[in-house]
């Protein structure tokens, strides 16, 4: 079993899971045409949980977290985020989206806006925060992800790792209660993966509720309190990281772990 390769100790003092339910998914199903992508998903996430979702490609992990802010529509079952149920009601969708931050595999920064404008856009236009205040908040979070000096550049001038950290800062500027990460390091060079994971660990240390689809098992062991394994659109296994990695129950999980950790 490989040990997490993070040099520094992780401060767990703020990583507390509360009793308050942040996300509740009940009997959720989703189809793409005839194809049944998500099958009977049941998942309860409490405030403060740090969940890593693993699984082979095509297993529906990304689709599942994209249902949580309704980038994808589910066809049956219920999804309740922070007490708001996701239906076709646009008001509810916008409310959930402004509470839930999302970080994408390909960063999806707005290339025609500066880094600072990327970060202030949503606070100004969605939260109606005055520009000056939004800029102060943006600089605070850019400092947190350690790139305040790039604020006036455009995304195209930054490295991949820097862009992804900006994307994290952009989400944080909306002061979300939940953060979704959709393979945030899959498009990055090895050196840059670390800087993004460090940023995510800091976020976890502050007690943010996080759902991460990722292949970074070191990260899962270091900060997750629960690992979920998905295959063929279903949740196959979920457990705390220690037991998940050292004592997997299902054959499918064992096979998956042996493939990604075996070498």
């Amino acid at each position, binding site marked *: 079993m490989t040990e997490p390769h993070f040099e520094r100790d992780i401060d767990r003092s703020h990583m507390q899971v509360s009793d308050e339910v942040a996300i509740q998914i009940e009997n959720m199903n989703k189809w793409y045409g005839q194809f049944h992508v998500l099958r009977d998903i049941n998942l309860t996430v409490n405030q403060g949980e740090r969940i890593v979702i693993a699984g082979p490609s095509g297993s529906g992990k990304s689709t599942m977290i994209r249902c949580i802010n309704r*980038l994808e529509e589910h066809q049956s079952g219920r999804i309740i985020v922070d007490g708001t149920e996701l239906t076709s009601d646009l008001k509810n969708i*916008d409310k959930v989206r402004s509470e839930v*931050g*999302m970080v994408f595999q390909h960063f*999806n920064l707005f290339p*025609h806006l500066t880094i600072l404008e990327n970060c202030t856009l949503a606070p100004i*236009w969605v939260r109606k925060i005055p520009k000056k205040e939004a800029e102060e908040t943006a600089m605070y979070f850019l400092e947190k992800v350690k790139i305040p000096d790039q604020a006036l550049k455009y995304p195209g*001038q930054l490295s991949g790792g820097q862009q992804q950290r900006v994307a994290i800062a952009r989400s944080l500027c*909306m002061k979300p209660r939940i953060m979704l990460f959709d393979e945030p390091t899959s498009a990055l060079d090895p050196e840059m993966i670390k800087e993004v994971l460090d940023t995510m660990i800091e976020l976890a240390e502050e007690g943010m509720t996080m759902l991460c689809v990722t292949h970074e098992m070191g990260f899962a062991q270091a900060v997750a309190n629960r690992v979920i394994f998905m295959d063929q659109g279903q949740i196959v296994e979920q457990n705390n990281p220690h037991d998940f990695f050292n004592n997997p129950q299902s054959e499918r999980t064992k096979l998956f772990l042996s493939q990604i950790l075996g070498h």
Partner: protein
Amino acid sequence: MSTSQTAAFVRKDMLPPQDPPTSQAGLVKWLRENLFASWFNAILTLSSVFVIYLLVTHFYPWFRHSVWNANSLAECRTIIAANWGEGASGACWAMLRERWHQFIFGFYPPELYWRPIAVFLGLLLAVAPVLFTQLPRQMLLFSLAYPLLAIWLLWGGSAWPVIMIAAGFGIGFLALRFLDEVSSILAIVAAIVAPILFWLFAVGPLDDVLSKAIPLAIEPVASDRFGGFLLAITIGAGGIALSLPLGIILALGRQSNMFLIKSCSVMFIEFIRGVPLITLLFVASLLLNYFLPPGTNFDIILRVMILVTMFAAAYIAEVIRGGLAALPRGQYEAADALGLDYWKAQRLIILPQALKISIPGIVSTFIGMFKDTTLVTFVGLFDPLKGIPDFIRADFNWKGIYWEPFVFVGAIFFILNFSMSRYAMYLERKLKRDHR
């Protein structure tokens, strides 16, 4: 003896840089690379030079023999024959000296030329802040007021109807501003309905009262007095200003998930693109009157402008659709994930990028449309390319003058269109955001 022949080496003196051999620099290099890179390339170069030589020797005498002072084409010919020998050809620019004002203003009353001149100058002033963001933003207020001001100056008559139109827009804006707090859909509906009600029911009586109280009128000029570049620029500028927003709406409509909006947009775009512009112009001049209530006297220039706008908008919509399709899905998703609603996402994220990609196509459409304004000659308007020259040729003095009007009008069109094209290139450079 060592098995390796490699000796250790340390350089003692650094070599100073030297000039490249003369065959590899300057003019010689340029010629070799660009004109005589291979024997085929050399043949192409030589034959191109020959063609250019033929063209220049053919046309140069015509320009060289130009006559500027004469009262008729016959007099021009006599002067050319006297100076350059019997059978020499030459340009008779004397026609322009006498008739240039008709190319520019058509049959606009000469004592009122100050009005179109003010409108031309105003156009430059109104367009400047739109084109160059460096200029103070307060100038945009003039740009907003300019269209109505230009309409009033060009056609004349009472100022009150124009002021009423402006007031209608003002009412719409206020409705949008104050009802937005209550509900954004209600605000949009009110912003559209309130001005229309105002124009339909309040303008007539108000106009009567106000015109009697304070008659703010200048001498009216009818549409059939318009002609030349005044006509082309009026239709062209109006069409450009109106077709861009309409094109954007159509492009978004075509992308919409709402079935009716999508089908209407598709039908409109495909119908307009499938029909020649001349057909639409005939519709404007003849058919439109059948559909309108009897007695409505709908100005011919306005009708043509509407049809030209619709024509250009259909093309622009397709150009912009290409720009929208070129954006990665992630941009839409990121905007959604941040909680931006549809209109905000379009306005702040999607359209700025899609329009930037579409600049070359949009400008091509504008240039094409501006040149197509000369087709209004088919509905009896005096365009600068055919209407005005034909009128001049009808004068006995200038009967038979052929190339000079084309060269002159072509040159002016070239200057205007070339500026549009250069501006588009400047804009593309300015909006470039990557690899700086």
